[in-house]
């Protein structure tokens, strides 16, 4: 078990609807280095939350950018 808090990354995105969610699922759901992920589509910042101790905050961001979504660190 990894210390989850240390490896939890949260981003502000534009992943808004089911269709968007599906696209993310295809990428993150199949990603072997991602332990856990979720999107809070109810929140105005559509917060993406990823838990992984094997992939960096920056790499996750780039992965999301590559499939055409906005993704910036949530402050």
């Amino acid at each position, binding site marked *: 078990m990894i210390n989850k*808090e240390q490896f*939890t990354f949260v981003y502000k995105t534009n992943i808004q609807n089911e269709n968007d969610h599906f696209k993310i699922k295809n990428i993150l759901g199949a990603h072997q280095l991602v332990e856990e992920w*979720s999107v*809070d589509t109810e*929140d105005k*910042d559509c917060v993406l939350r990823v838990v992984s101790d094997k992939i960096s905050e920056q790499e996750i961001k780039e992965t999301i950018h590559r499939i055409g979504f906005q993704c910036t660190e*949530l402050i």
Partner: protein
Amino acid sequence: MRVRDENKEITIREKAIELIVKEGFNGFSMQKLAKGAHVSPATIYIYYKNKEEMLNKLFMHVRIVFWETAMVDFHPEMQLEEGLLQQWKNRFHFILAYPMHFQFMEQFRNSPLIKHKDVDISQFKVSMKAFIKNAISRNEMKKMEPEIFWAIAYGSFYSLVKFHLDDKSMMGRPFEFTETKIKQAVKLVTKALNP
């Protein structure tokens, strides 16, 4: 690397319980919580995925606090009256010490938003069942439907607590639920349960 900050975690949790009790779950948002707890939304999302998950985790936490408080100085082998008295005292202490937790628990006890499966097994429930079983085997009470037992043993308690918490009781004056009154009521409840 991020360092776990337990104080922050507690602040977020307590503020969330307070906001949900005061404004309801529909009016509650992670953004409001961030403002109220003086933390960034990012900090909240470290601990919780979304508000539904948060609600379930809060509910579980509140129940654990309740269970722990209810088990203080209580043993399933206690005589019926003695055990009930300890339960009433412990539960009253919980309500006075954690008024927000109590309201939160009442509010979501039967909510479909709570996934009860996660929280159903506990030492508390095991002990409460054993306590009743022991009382029956000592012939201090008869076997009965759990709902009937609860209504008599604890329903009366929660009615009296409500009188205590309200500014005015049914008699139009304040009612103070003192230790003497607790003892008096438990005696009556025990009598009602006796075979």
